[in-house]
């Protein structure tokens, strides 16, 4: 069963997108394997404390992207293939780059400065903060 324990909902961001993102991260990290089952809509709604409409919207988005399939009895399963992993990874990486670029630009960095900074940070990674 796919776990949602690690998902902390943030203010100011559509909740259905946060649910979708949680699944994509799980697919990329390997926490979610092919055929893993999603909790029922009702359970998920209760676990997260969000309206069933919101959960339904997230599931619909995941279905449209081919990341889950839904069967009779409203049971849904993850679709994890080399293709879905690659697609999710590309999207997550690009999203991270976009938001970093936005904030760097907002702080007045030019492209060359930004690239240099990335190179420097890339070569000297700080220990991840616990």
């Amino acid at each position, binding site marked *: 069963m796919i776990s949602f324990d690690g998902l902390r909902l943030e203010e100011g961001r559509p909740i*259905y997108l946060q649910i979708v993102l949680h699944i994509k991260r799980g697919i990329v990290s390997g926490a979610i394997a092919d055929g893993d089952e999603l909790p029922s809509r*009702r359970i998920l*709604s*209760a676990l997260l*404390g*969000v*309206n*069933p409409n919101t959960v339904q919207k997230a599931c619909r988005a995941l279905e449209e992207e081919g990341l889950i399939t839904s069967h009779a009895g409203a049971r849904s399963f993850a679709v994890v293939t080399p293709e879905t992993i690659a697609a999710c990874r590309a999207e997550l990486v690009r999203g991270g780059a976009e938001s970093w670029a936005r904030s760097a630009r907002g702080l007045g960095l030019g492209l060359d400065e930004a690239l240099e900074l990335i190179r420097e940070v890339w070569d000297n990674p700080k220990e991840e903060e616990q």
Partner: protein
Amino acid sequence: MLEIKDVTKRFGSKTALNSVSLSLPRGELVGLFGENGAGKTTLMKCILGLMGHSGQITLDGERITRKNIARLSFATCEHSFFPDLSGAGHADFYAAHFPAFRRRRFEVLMDFFSLPLNRAPRSFSTGQKNQFEVVLALSQGADYILMDEPFSGSDVFNREDFYKVLLGILDNGETVLLSTHMLEEVDSFISRAVLLHSGRITGDISMSELEESGESLMDYVKRAWNYRSDRIRRAIDELSGEAGDR
């Protein structure tokens, strides 16, 4: 469908509800928001027939009478239980009077709130009394559950967990109308927000619509109330002017 059409309620010269119209279909979780004195409690009491009013309130097209009143339940901070009847006694009383009484749900919720079955609610703390009131409203077997500020006196953990349990137990056909000040606590839980201001409906929006607009519930509410964001600065400015005079 619970339909409220053009309901007006006056107390002497004061207009508590001013031509309020609202439709509540089955299965919605509706937040009812408004300042103290906006008319939230009055609106609920009019729906339940506890107060006379002008205008029309119907349930699936029929006026609300003794015949269909059991389809509505009410949790009020004024409390509607019997102070000297134990929890178990209430279950028996409700089972005898409400054919759709949900005994299993009653037991689960009593256990969830750690409320004793064999003690009279007179001896409960204020928080426990409010919880007991909510348990009864949810267990009656009503299609429309009206809750008026149900969680005053409950701590934040109990409230948060309660919304989650509620999402897990409600049937698709059950409608909740919940009045509260705690906007940010319920904004992910509700499907629709209705705003009352000085006895009038000043806002009515589905949460998915609101989400698409990118506006938070708090900002929507403030905008609908013409909230003046400069009021803090003005108060401080006026006070500092006063201090400077001394």
